């Protein structure tokens, strides 16, 4: 679609959706709200459900599922020290694939070593990017990466330094080929 045309269309649609939402807000239209500018709880709940259904329609179309918690059956253990946030995304069609994300206050090197040991103990064969390679990339000490395989499973793991907190963002991409 032509971008400008789409922009106009989408803006119009967005506004119209909003207006439709407002118009369908019975409390806003007919009854006085419990607080200024706010609909009654039942209507708010309906609006929330409508919004969530739109979100779910996107997830369904994109064939992904996103949650904050990493499932316990994720093939790799989740780092659990000083964790401030986790997230998880998986595909819902085709070959199984998922990415788990963890943010921790711990340093990348420590987190990376923890995962190396866990992978080794679980029988994965892994290959880490050498310090020389990371130096070439200008990421020495900032990013740690490894690839690991086990049977038909493959994992790409990275531990990236968050410059602001000196903590680590862990990204574990997992795939199982059929």
């Amino acid at each position: 679609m032509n971008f400008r045309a789409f922009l106009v269309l989408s803006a119009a649609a967005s506004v119209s959706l909003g207006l439709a939402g407002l118009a369908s807000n019975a409390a806003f239209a007919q009854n006085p709200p419990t607080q200024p500018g706010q609909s009654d709880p039942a209507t708010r709940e309906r609006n929330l459900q409508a919004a969530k259904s739109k979100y779910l329609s996107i997830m369904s179309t994109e064939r992904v599922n996103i949650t904050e918690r990493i499932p316990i059956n994720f093939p790799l253990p989740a780092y659990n020290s000083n964790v401030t946030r986790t997230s998880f995304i998986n595909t819902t069609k085709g070959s199984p694939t998922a990415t788990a994300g963890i943010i921790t206050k711990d340093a990348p090197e420590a987190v990376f070593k923890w995962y190396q040991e866990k992978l080794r103990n679980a029988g994965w064969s892994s290959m880490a990017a050498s310090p020389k390679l990371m130096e070439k990339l200008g990421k020495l000490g900032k990013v740690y990466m490894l690839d690991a395989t086990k049977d038909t499973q493959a994992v790409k793991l990275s531990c990236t330094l968050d410059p602001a907190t000196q903590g680590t963002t862990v990204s574990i991409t997992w795939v199982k080929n059929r």
Partner: protein
Amino acid sequence: MKTKRDKRGSVTAFSAVLALALLVLGIGFLFIVLYMGAQRETKNATDAGALNVGKKALTDISVPVMPTDVFADCASDSIDNNALRDNKITLGRINRVWSKAMLIAINAEAAGADGQAGSGSGNASQAVSGAEEISNSLAAKLKTPSNLHGFFNELSQQNSVRMIGVGSSTQVLPGAGWQTSLMDREAESNIELTGSPSDNFYLPPGYSLPAGASTQCTRSPKPDGVGNKYFLKGYVPIQIGGKTIWQVPFKWDNKPILVASSKFDAEKATTKALEWSNPVPNAFSAEGQALKAGAPGEKATSWVLSNPRKPFKLSAPHSFLKIKVDQPKCHWYFYPIPPIKVEFGAAQNYDFNSSPTGMTGTTMPGGGVLCSSVTPPSQMIGLDIAGRSLDEVIFSLPNLHTSETKKVEDQMVSRANQMISKPGVVITPAKLHSCLGSAVTRLALIAGEKNFYLFSKDGETLECLPKIAADALAFTWMPLISGKDADGTEKKIIDDDYMPGGFPLPHAPVPLPFCSPTPLVNVSWVLWDKDVYWKPGTGYNGSLGEIRVKRWSEVHTVGVCNPL
């Protein structure tokens, strides 16, 4: 009455007669011995001359080719692709020419079956015509006895025929004694196939060699070294896409040998016709005569079956496969009208030398439901390509399209084997991945290189290097052809192989008036995507094809607000 003396005189006379008879017999015997010896010497000299014809016909009678000719790379007895070529096609090399034309035709046929023929079919026709032209010229030269006479004399004159007389020698006797034959029909040629029928000889995926085109060694007993190798069959028409390919049989590891006249005569084209209108012969008869002071003495005929004793693998020696990596880009998607997504903002480049890196997209006005604007959070981009080798860029994650990935691998393995001339060497998928996964490709990608060449500098090993390094390593030929494009048409083999590839992050869209962001649904995530394209090349101009890899990231940002 006879006296004792008379009796003795009778014995003397008898002895004299006997001695004379014995002398005559001795002289007769001597002449017979001399005659037979001369005949044997003449035959030996003729055999030696004929064997030299069988040997020199392989190397010293040639058809010139231009250095730019499609078959110029076949003008060598070496498997080493970097070895200098002498621009001559000989009997020992003619099968290389025909087999290269065959490969070109096979590649065109396979590309055509996939709807990717392009100009490959036309090139294949030209290649086969070119091979036929060279072959016909060579056949004409080999069938012209005067071209062989010198080889005969070269050795026959060195052989002693003293029994004919002092100063006598065996020389060519021109005429009907000089003929050619097409022996060992349906035996193996000196072109070895890669692998076995079970792995389809590593020919292009989907293509099958015609039944009866190949054979194992036909020598009996089978020599130890030949194992279970397969070869193209000689003096058998091999049909490839309506074109006929020929091979001259040369049994594995046989030297030029003398053969019986009966066998030679039975296989002559005049005795037993071949479909091949102008066949290249592999056997020759030679007639010589021993001369004494200008007068004919003895004459003899010998029959020799030629053999270069030099096998090659079915190959296009000077060839390459190009691998091109497109500039990785990050695209930004929004969902203003769910579930339809729209790309907003210019795609941003990321690269092998800067990844992974944090990237932020452009704010999209109205980029979500009841959103005034949506701004994607900063996402870590390039983890899919950071520090990766070329092998990983092509084959690694995302690699969920396993059958399509296998197709790409099969095409590449097939083409890689077409670069190898050394018999017995097989480029397996593992070898290909090892080559593509070398530290060199990793460092070259980091250095910003996007074009790579897969080739064999020595006809035995595989290399994958950037153009400048390929040109330098194969300096005798690569610079002449590395600029050529594959003659087929491009097709996407792996179509949008993708997977989640980053940390899904929450974000806060700016809501429209009287709205607020819906909790837990405003999220942004990254997908790693990959397309792989295949453009087949027949090898006619040196290019066996092109692999193009497109890697990109998509940041999807959902913005949803609801009325207050």
